């Protein structure tokens, strides 16, 4: 059996399909609608990846310029949003390499596995069993965002795409050009890292 020809691949008609088609057919003014639609999401994604506000702004602008430049190449074989985030992630990675914030390190499962009498939990702490609204506070949200910032980039990218932006495993793998297995490993470690930070926060409260 031969692979289907590129031209025969089914087009994905997502919510941006008509708008992207309109732009690609010459209605370039409508690109502003695309920017309006994704500006805030991309700004926050970039801020979480770059940390520095000026870098995040540069990244968003560069992403939209790249999207405009390459939109004609978009084949509607994926959701437009996934393609957009692929460009955004790649732009953030390039920006980060030039940035001073780049604490790269591997997170190993062992460092999160509770061992020894002092670490082995014997009961669910309040922060994990009270209703969510009883636990949430602005200070806690600041702590969560701060903890996300301290994650090494490759783990941060995955957790931001999965747990904040809401992409599924397959989409995240496609955006980052990783295997799904790799996405799952990174996500689990990133979540365990954040869990430890939250645990520390609540224990020292």
């Amino acid at each position, binding site marked *: 059996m031969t692979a289907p020809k590129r031209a025969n691949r089914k087009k994905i008609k997502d919510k941006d399909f008509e708008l992207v088609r309109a732009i690609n057919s010459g209605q370039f003014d409508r690109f502003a609608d695309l920017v309006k639609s994704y*500006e*805030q999401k991309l700004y926050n994604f970039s801020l979480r990846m770059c940390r520095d506000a000026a870098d995040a702004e540069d990244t968003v*602008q560069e992403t939209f310029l790249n999207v405009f430049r390459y939109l004609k190449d978009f084949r509607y074989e994926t959701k437009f949003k996934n393609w957009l985030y692929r460009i955004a992630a790649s732009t953030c990675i390039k920006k980060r390499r030039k940035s001073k914030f780049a604490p790269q390190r591997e997170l190993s499962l062992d460092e999160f596995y509770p061992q020894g009498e002092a670490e*082995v939990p014997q*009961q669910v702490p309040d922060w*994990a069993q009270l209703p969510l609204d009883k636990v*949430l506070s602005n200070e806690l949200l600041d702590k969560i965002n701060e903890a996300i910032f301290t994650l090494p980039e490759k783990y941060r990218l995955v957790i931001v795409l999965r747990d*904040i932006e809401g992409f599924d*495993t397959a989409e995240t793998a496609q955006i980052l050009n990783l295997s799904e297995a790799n996405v799952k490993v990174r996500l689990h470690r990133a979540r365990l890292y954040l*869990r430890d930070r939250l645990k520390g926060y609540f224990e020292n409260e």
Partner: protein
Amino acid sequence: MNKNEHDHRHCLELFEKLSEYLDNELDEVTCRDIEKHVKECVPCFVCLQTLKRTIDLCKQAGNRSVPEDFSKKLKEAIQNMPKSPPAR
């Protein structure tokens, strides 16, 4: 298992899969295995609950508004782009 020990191989195997379990990405047999295990193993139950809450909290992280100055600058940059994409 002694309540102060948490070095059981089965615990470690399941510990690796807790995120996939919470994301409904495991087969039914493994799911049942985890559910059975956490009923009997308090440390693993606590790990599962704290991980679940971490995900819930992460989803609440929230978004900042785009600074007005930047939004204006971005709009201008878009308006100043060539009216047709560059030829390839």
